[in-house]
């Protein structure tokens, strides 16, 4: 296997992940607060134990919003080689995936509401075994990546 893939995601990805992470944590926090309230109101346990759910969610929130996006961005790399797509991702478990261009059936770009606000897009390419994603590229870059993959796939002849 060759060295690390060359390209990185758009730096705005970190902000986007922070926001979406914060939204998820907020939902969890609401659930935890309800559990907390129920524990204090009806449970017969010390207050230190009762606040555990909210504390756990808060710690999780710090990790998800402050720590994880930076690490994730630093690790995420991709490269479109002439014969295959090379992906690397993961914070704790580092995963490296190679997808031969000859196996790619079609390529999409997609954009969620939050992504639209930051001008980011996700490239999704499908093999017979399912989809692979390259998330949070700036929209023009994503379009270029999509077109490059599409062009390279038609050049390859099926094995």
């Amino acid at each position, binding site marked *: *296997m060759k060295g690390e893939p060359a390209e990185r995601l758009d730096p705005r990805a970190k902000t986007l992940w922070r926001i979406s992470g914060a939204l998820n944590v907020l939902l969890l926090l609401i659930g935890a607060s309800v559990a907390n309230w129920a524990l204090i109101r009806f449970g017969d346990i010390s207050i230190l134990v009762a606040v555990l759910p909210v504390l756990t969610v808060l710690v999780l929130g710090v990790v998800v919003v402050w720590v994880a996006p930076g690490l994730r961005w630093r690790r995420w790399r991709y490269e479109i080689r002439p014969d295959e797509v090379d992906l690397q991702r993961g914070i704790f478990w580092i995963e490296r995936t190679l997808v031969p261009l000859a196996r790619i059936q079609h390529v999409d770009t997609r954009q969620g509401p939050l992504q639209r606000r930051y001008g980011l897009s996700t490239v999704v390419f499908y093999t017979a075994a399912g989809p692979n994603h390259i998330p949070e590229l700036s929209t023009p870059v994503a379009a270029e990546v999509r077109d490059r993959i599409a062009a390279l796939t038609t050049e390859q002849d099926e094995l």
Partner: protein
Amino acid sequence: MSSEKHLHPVAMLVGAISTVRRWVGGLVFPGILLLLSQGFNLRTVALFLLVVLVVAMLAALWGFLTWRATTYAVTRNSFRLKQGVLQKNERTIPLDHVQSVDTVQGIIQRAFGVVEVRIETAGGGASEPDASLSALGRETAQALRLEIEGSQRGRSEEAKGPTILRRLSTRELLVAGATSGQIGVAFSVLAVGSQFLDDFLSESYFRRLVEALSPNWFMVVLLLVPAGLLLAWLLAIAGTVLAYNGFTLSREGNFLYIKRGLLERREATIPLARIQAIRVSEGVLRQPFGLAAVRVESAGYGEDAGVSTMLFPLLPRDEVDEFLAMAASEFGVNPHLEPLPRRALRRYVFRAVFGYLIIALAAALVSFFVFQSARGLHALFLVPPAAAYGWLCYRDAGWAFEGDRLVVRYRSLGRKTAVAPRRRLQSRGVMRSPFQRRARLATFFAEVASGSGGSALRVTDLDAAAAEMLAGNLGPGTHLKRA
């Protein structure tokens, strides 16, 4: 042959019965209510029979209309099916999109000597066939199949019939049932059955039964547990006999044909070109006797078992290579497998034991604090067997890349060997956790297309350099480098 054709008239009956089946759900409840509220006098019985008669007639009429509305035709390069009494529906399937033409024989079809033909395409969903003809005469079905598959197949091969590769004998069938290890499945059937019984036996009856038996509960358990096990085992055998009776695998050119089933005769076609990977699995009860089953994973194939199809349910392990050489030679290899490095053993044992350690710890804590006893530590007895299982997993794991095929062996309860040619790998990669990085180990995975999605061949904890080498060598343009 491009004329519109009708199905065999038995299709009317099949249609009528399936309509009745759909209506019965709605009718049973009011029917029973009626009978219960009025008692069994002549009037209610007559009314009941009248309703049954009307339903039967309506269903028969519907069956006839459905039959009249359904026609099919094979034109030069497509298959066309017209359906629908009220809402007309016409479907055209290009012949080169057809993945397989299967025939299934339900009980009704069997009674009349006709078959149901199912046509599947590559893009179709897993649960429903893309086109289904509920009744055709045997010859018509055969002719249709030849017509559809003829476009994919060379002319020369049509002349000779399929040659039978292997047939499951009655003895093998029973052995397959006895060693299927589907006791778990049978148990769940039993559990559902006992739920059903619960509804019938009243609670007070049940309580009296328990009271009568409770002095001898030990004896009861001693009797009930083996009896339950035996029943589950017999059910597993019965299930296997139902599914695999008369299992026959034959081959004609580049197509494999499977026939099987006791009550419902099923025939399936597997085009060799669609097979993505083969898995040889030696179940826990089979490995000691040197027996194995062979499954194929084919891309988007039929509704049969979702992701993979049974290629042959039972054969001696040492005949598998010879069998594959005949059936699907692309997959017939038995290379020397590369074992995992010694330092992977620690991780395998740890992974197997970890869950039980947590359970034991939790049990110990709970029993200490809640029940003030050390009983919870008994859960530690689970740890040595788990460790032994981890060691087995380590010992059985191995991989090879030979003759342009990836071979992976692993254990998940039973020992499994998967074979996939390089050109079938959709993607591949290497995964590393911090612990693996420290031990210079990695997990290698390769995905093949199967059923609705992918399915992975995985080697956990092989040497990191070997994993990188594998990922690099299995690429498209690169030429084979020897491991």
